[in-house]
């Protein structure tokens, strides 16, 4: 800035230069800490004195007007710097406050859904153990084993919720680094289906996988969780005897496509945009659920540079399409080694 002013010094007076330098100091104050700002103000005063106030190229000032001008510049530059910095501080504080309020709101939603989602299984466990421990009870053997299996179910549910929370915090921390390795997607899909066996009782699952699907290089654990959450979600919301279809193929752009469809009621059009938001729950939806499952799906898919889209099928039902760019290798190349 000083250099530009210097080159222009033949056209503009040294008093104009002072204003240009002041602007520079203000700009610096907008981006840097207090110490460099004051230093900049000080240097600018010196530069102005040395290069511009006649006689130029000395620190000496002859004219008494200029002495006053210089000291005024010196003070204004410092005050200007300090004030701009202060304003910035206040703004920062304001932003922080707003941020805090948002987090607080988020926490409240979280606590509400969590207290339901965690307390239900806990109540089941406490209630069931109380009944079982009661010395005077006349429980039949059937009822006893029923209670015990309820305890077991409740604990598994708790465990799943804790898993969801941990995944969420992994995403929030921003340190989610996919660890890619060659994956047999066929194996992965059936792995998830087998894990969800209990939830799929009374429902039909149809798996359509491209024959000779190549190996795909991606994070098995992340994709497994994505598919698990999508299918698990479907099992909760489709009616008895509903059908879930999982299709896997590689598209023209050599991206891995996984489509999970069901023949349930689908999602209200108005809310489709929100379903991937953290803690979002459909209006009129059944109680239960933390609104974390689908937001984890989105987070994980995006961590793998992919995308997930939700649409309603024409014939009714929801259709999730997960698209992930990934390196692929054809099995044939290896088999013929």
């Amino acid at each position, binding site marked *: 800035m000083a250099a530009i002013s210097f080159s222009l010094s033949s056209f503009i007076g040294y008093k104009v230069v002072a204003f240009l330098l002041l602007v520079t100091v203000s700009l610096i104050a907008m981006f840097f800490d207090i110490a460099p700002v004051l230093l900049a103000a000080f240097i600018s005063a010196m530069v102005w004195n040395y290069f511009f106030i006649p006689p130029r190229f000395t620190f000496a000032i002859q004219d008494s007007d200029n002495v006053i001008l210089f000291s005024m510049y010196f003070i204004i530059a410092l005050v200007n710097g300090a004030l701009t910095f202060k304003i910035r501080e206040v703004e920062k504080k304001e932003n922080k406050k707003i941020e805090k309020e948002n987090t607080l709101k988020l926490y409240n939603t979280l606590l509400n859904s969590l207290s339901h989602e965690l307390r239900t299984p806990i109540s089941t466990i406490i209630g069931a153990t109380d009944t079982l421990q009661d010395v005077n009870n006349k429980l039949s053997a059937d009822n006893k084993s029923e209670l015990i299996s309820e305890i077991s179910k409740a*604990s598994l549910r708790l*465990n799943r919720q804790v898993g969801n929370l941990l995944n969420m915090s992994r995403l929030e921390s921003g340190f989610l680094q996919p*660890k890619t*390795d*060659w*994956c*047999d997607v*066929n*194996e992965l899909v*059936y*792995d998830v*289906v*087998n894990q969800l066996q209990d939830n799929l009782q009374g429902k039909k699952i149809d*798996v359509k996988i491209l024959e000779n699907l190549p*190996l795909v290089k991606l994070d*098995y*654990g992340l994709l*497994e969780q994505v598919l698990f959450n999508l299918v698990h979600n479907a099992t909760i919301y489709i009616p008895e005897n509903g059908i879930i279809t999982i299709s896997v193929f590689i598209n023209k752009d050599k991206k891995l496509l996984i489509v999970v469809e069901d023949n349930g009621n689908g999602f209200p059009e108005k809310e489709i945009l929100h379903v991937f938001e953290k803690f979002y729950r459909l209006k009129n939806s059944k109680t239960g659920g933390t609104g974390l499952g689908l937001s984890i799906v989105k987070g994980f898919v995006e961590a793998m540079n992919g995308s997930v889209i939700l649409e309603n099928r024409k014939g009714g039902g929801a259709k999730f399409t997960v698209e992930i760019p990934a390196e692929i*290798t054809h*099995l044939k190349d*290896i*088999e013929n080694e």
Partner: protein
Amino acid sequence: MNNAIEILVIDDESQIRKLLNITLGSNDYKVKEAINAREGLLIAANHPPDLILLDLGLPDESGHVVLEKLREWYTKPIIILSVQSNEENIVKALDAGANDYLVKPFRTGELLARIRSLLRNHLTESESPIIKSNDLEIDLSLRIVKKNNEAIKLTATEYNLLALLIKNEGKVLTHQYLLRAIWGPSYINQSQYLRVYIAQLRKKIEDDLNKPLHIITESGIGYRFV
């Protein structure tokens, strides 16, 4: 029951110790408990148990360190119990000589199955060359694999892979370990070979390719033969 099999549990959580004590005790194992690394190492040295269940998160010293110290002299099976489910931790423990791992919360049926299989392996090591596992039978001296008493054709690599897995029945073998052992050290990052051969092996030995009962995938870690 003087000759009962002894299991040492090293875990700082009293609830877990109690659970294990009851579960293992009612399955005729004799249980010893240690509440921290120091005590665990002491008990193991004074009277070596037949198997050790080791928690990774101990108050005084990391379970990884305890594992290393134990492996300096202790050759019997060690199973890791841990709440840390990240793969790196598990692979690290397996590479340091743990025979198996279970992530808390674990199912007791699973734990008992792993203990049985490790103890069986340890007791029958270097005995007959024929190993049977349900419908499968493998003759290590003749290099023959039979399913339901019918010989199945395997390529040399397929056979080597299967034989290695079967010899370590019940134990998780990490991807790197398998690649190094079957294909050689320069292949340890070429996991695509392993994927393909596992898929081919499953086609030949599993009843339902999509519900494998013999070769189980431990996602992000390796494979286990059961």
